[in-house]
């Protein structure tokens, strides 16, 4: 489904993403982890068409975002790390606006919005102003927006930050179900939380993927140990002068 080939990106002379290649098949939930400044957010931004890579290629079901950007963007759902929202809108108004902007037919808009509200546990705050929502609810609204049109690729940057334990479980269950038709890429640091439902872990450091670990090849404890040891190794390496 998603193929990433030798992606490279630099801010000035500093290479932030360096020769990164991987792919994600439907049904897979891939966790992207690593220390701060490893290049996770930049990589997700490239996949979300917010940055253009210096080199390399991205394809989603054979569609290249550089040659067919609108079609590619129609197939992705993106949750930003900052989770920005229009403060002056109500939750349902915001989702309706975003669904219309994404090109959904008028007749289906209301149904799509109510589905997303229900899936993300937002029905009770549907007519609440966004400025009144807590950080956790704001994250849910961002997630609802990302999933509302059942995209083929879900890009969720720092998904679990600010979400309470109960909602984390619901989110995990929901994403496991959604992965049947979508490729999911989640970034975050919460390894214990990601472990039960992610099918693969990519550990990034200094713009490179230094480890790729599949959950079906190890048991949970072993996998957690491996991922943590890779992250610790990377952290120790990063502290060297």
């Amino acid at each position, binding site marked *: 489904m998603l193929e990433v080939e030798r992606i490279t990106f630099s801010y000035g002379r500093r290479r932030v993403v360096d020769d990164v290649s991987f792919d994600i098949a439907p049904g897979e939930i891939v966790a992207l982890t690593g220390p701060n400044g490893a290049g996770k957010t930049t990589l997700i931004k490239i996949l979300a068409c917010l940055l253009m890579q210096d080199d390399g290629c991205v394809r989603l079901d054979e569609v290249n975002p550089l040659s067919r950007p609108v079609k590619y*963007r129609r197939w992705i759902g993106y949750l930003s790390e*900052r989770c920005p929202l229009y403060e002056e809108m109500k939750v349902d108004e915001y989702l309706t606006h975003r669904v219309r902007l994404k090109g959904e037919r008028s007749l289906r808009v209301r149904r799509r919005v109510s589905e997303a509200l229900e899936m993300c546990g937002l029905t009770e705050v549907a007519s609440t102003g966004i400025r009144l929502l807590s950080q956790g609810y704001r994250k849910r609204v961002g997630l609802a*927006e990302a999933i509302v049109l059942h995209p083929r690729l879900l890009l969720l940057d720092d998904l679990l930050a600010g979400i309470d334990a109960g909602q984390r479980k619901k989110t995990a269950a929901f994403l496991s179900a959604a992965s049947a038709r979508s490729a999911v890429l989640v970034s975050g640091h919460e390894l214990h939380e990601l472990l039960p439902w992610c099918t693969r872990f990519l550990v990034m450091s200094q713009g490179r993927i230094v480890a790729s670990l599949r959950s079906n090849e190890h048991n949970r404890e072993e996998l957690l140990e491996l991922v943590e040891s890779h992250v610790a190794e990377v952290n120790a390496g990063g502290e060297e002068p």
Partner: protein
Amino acid sequence: MRPVYTIWLRELRAFFGAFSCGVTLAAFLAAYGWTFGMLLRGNEGSVLQIQSLWGVAVTPWLPVLSAILTTRLFAEERATGMIEMLMSSPVREREVVAGKFLSAFTVVALALLISLVVPLWVLPRMSLHVQGDVSGLAFSATLLILLLQAALWCAAGTLVSLFFSNQVAAAACSLLLCCGLPAAMYFAVMAWVPALRAEVAWMPLLVHVYDFSTGLFSVAVMMLYLASAVFFLFACSKSLACLRLRS
């Protein structure tokens, strides 16, 4: 066209929901009213037609209004991070720019229509002398040239707004561009500096408004304003696309 409509509608709601927009519109109408009153008093008994006075009273305040209204279009999106959500949506850059530009233009056009209340409705009821001279048709040509000017200022303001995430800085730069340029032209023409006059004669704002208000239409002038507005919008669309290179 649908993304343009969706963005236009959202921006309009944001405009009318914002306290600052109401204050800006009120300040514009007050400033215009004061200028119009001064012009009426100063030209009592002259042969100047009422639509010319209206046009001349509105013209200097139009760039100020446009600059302030367009400030938030992209600057706010950049400050809040919503620009990311727009850029990852299946919408072309030109559609985003068109939607935002049209929303600001709609508000400016609305302000122009409100400003018409005084010469078309209030004044005929106050002065018997004016009653016979005022007709809606005579104002249409003046409104047309003012709308073209508004389109130019809104397009320039939209472009400037894209380069800032701080609305105050965007407003300052917009004001500099929208007011500085015509003011420089105006004073240069007024000062009658032969060398400068030749340079700036291509866009004397007040002269164009006066010509149109007296029935002297010029397709070349209309094309000039339209082409300038399209140029700014094109530049804005391309600059938005460039954000992907390094945001």
